[in-house]
């Protein structure tokens, strides 16, 4: 006989991930304060995970947790931790999360520049240009670059870029820009009929894209984690 | 019979053609499904042997297997020889 008042179910929640080269409590505090100043409302009591993959020195988790408490952020745990790091994090009462193989490939590339701020001063990106229609079931990924599609992106297709995405046709599928986490990247298209648009991990489904820009040319960006639609021209 | 019926009957009744074709081909295929795998090849081999002596067409040899009781199966072979005009 099952007790329906108590159930443990698996669920997926998007969490912000902090990448920071210097994990000394002081550095973390300064960086976080700067970031919070940009968008205080969004980060209020936000659950955060720290990526410790490229960190060389073992951080003082207790001190960092204290910083988070002061800044009214919730430190959930770490990800990308080595066995040793894991033990230490857990000792400090933090969870060790599995770095999953997600569609945003930034987490996979180990030689990727470690970010100290969310806005990356990226190296010169070579634009990937695709001169054909993207069909249902196909996927294009422009790693570390902008993506230009000279054609239509069909329903059921996915176009992904670490940079911006420009579609000189109709977007009916999914467009994922700023895949590496850069929220300044945008999606430009000639006709907006998208299934999904994502910028730096935040996404909107076609329901949220309805309105005066649906079926027309548009430029889609992220501002204060809110979707902003604007004229293409 | 009304005027319309008269005109209609001159149109080919394709459904009955279809039914006839289906009855033949489905029976043929069901038979093959129930028979051992070697039967088609057996039929072709027999045709080849007979052809060494008499010139006959593909459909003048037929091989089929019948189960007359639980233990006994009968292999029936039919060969139709053309009229000997020599």
């Amino acid at each position: 006989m099952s007790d329906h008042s108590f159930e443990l179910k698996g669920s997926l929640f998007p969490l912000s991930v902090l990448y920071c080269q210097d994990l000394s409590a002081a550095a973390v505090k300064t960086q976080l304060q700067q970031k919070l100043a940009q968008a205080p409302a969004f980060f209020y009591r936000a659950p955060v995970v720290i990526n410790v993959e490229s960190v060389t020195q073992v951080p003082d988790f207790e001190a960092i947790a204290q910083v988070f408490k002061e800044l009214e952020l919730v430190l959930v745990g770490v990800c990308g931790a080595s066995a040793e790091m894991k033990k230490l994090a857990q000792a400090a009462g933090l969870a060790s999360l599995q770095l999953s193989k997600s569609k945003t490939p930034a987490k996979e590339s180990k030689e990727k520049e470690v970010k100290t701020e969310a806005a990356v001063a990226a190296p010169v990106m070579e634009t990937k240009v695709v001169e054909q229609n993207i069909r249902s079931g196909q996927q294009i990924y422009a790693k570390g670059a902008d993506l230009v599609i000279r054609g239509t992106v069909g329903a059921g297709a996915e176009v992904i870029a670490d940079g911006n995405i420009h579609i000189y046709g109709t977007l009916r599928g999914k467009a994922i820009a700023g895949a590496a986490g850069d929220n300044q990247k945008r999606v430009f298209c000639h006709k907006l009929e998208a299934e999904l648009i994502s910028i730096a991990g935040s996404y909107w489904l076609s329901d949220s894209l309805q309105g005066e820009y649906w079926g027309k040319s548009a430029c889609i960006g992220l501002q204060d984690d809110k979707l902003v639609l604007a004229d293409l021209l | 019979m009304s005027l319309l019926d008269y005109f209609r009957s001159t149109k080919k009744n394709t459904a009955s053609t279809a039914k006839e074709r289906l009855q033949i081909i489905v029976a043929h295929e069901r038979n093959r499904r129930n028979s051992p795998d070697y039967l088609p090849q057996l039929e072709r081999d027999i045709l080849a042997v007979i052809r060494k002596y008499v010139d006959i067409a593909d459909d003048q040899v037929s091989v089929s297997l019948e189960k007359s009781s639980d233990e006994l199966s009968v292999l029936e072979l039919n060969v139709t020889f053309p009229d000997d005009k020599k």
Partner: protein
Amino acid sequence: MAKIIVVTSGKGGVGKTTSSAAIGTGIAMRGFKTVIIDFDIGLRNLDLIMGCERRVVYDFVNVINGEANLKQALIKDKRIETLFILPASQTRDKDALSKEGVERILNELAEEFDYIICDSPAGIESGAMMALYFADEAVVVTNPEVSSVRDSDRILGMLSSKSRRAEQGLPGIKEHLLLTRYNPERVVKGEMLSVEDVGEILAIKLLGVIPESQAVLNASNSGQPVILDQDSDAGQAYLDTVARLLGEDVPFRFLNVEKKGLLKRIFGG
């Protein structure tokens, strides 16, 4: 050297075999030596539509396995001299069609024939992928209906990435759109996707529009490819389609609602 044309769709039941039979027959009627191959594995359909079901002795897989040669397996059409059919196997082994085997047979056929029409099965499994792999041109059969259009889009993706031409960096397969079961009345009412709607989504050149027609069922009942029913709308639409495939510029018919005269209303058109 023969031209290999695959008739495919992704979605089932949209008119691939009907179209393969009609187009193959149409091309042969023009004097070209033509063979239509049924690429289905396990379910044979082309022979029934062509009316030669009782003359099947050997099939595609028999030839690949060396159990028979092409000459023994090919069925010569009784109506048109230059038309031949290679029936499908009734095996259940999905690996029965090997790339090497299919290539060998296509090469052998290419020496003798002008056109090789590959009737693809539905889906994107081995029979369908094998049918499109060696193609030079593709006729993508689509119904003006959502799942058919999406599946056709998927198949177009396969044509541009999973074919031999794509793998070897050769010029791509020439893609044609064949819209079947078109009903202009429903399009006007706004109940059916129009030619323009489908064209906009799939973005390939329109080869032909075949109207929804009673002639198609009559044709398969009698084992006569519908293109031979030259009085019917579907038959004529296929004749136009074949002409365009052969490079002729033919205006599109059957796109608009026809005003049926009294006699046509009584006896059906």
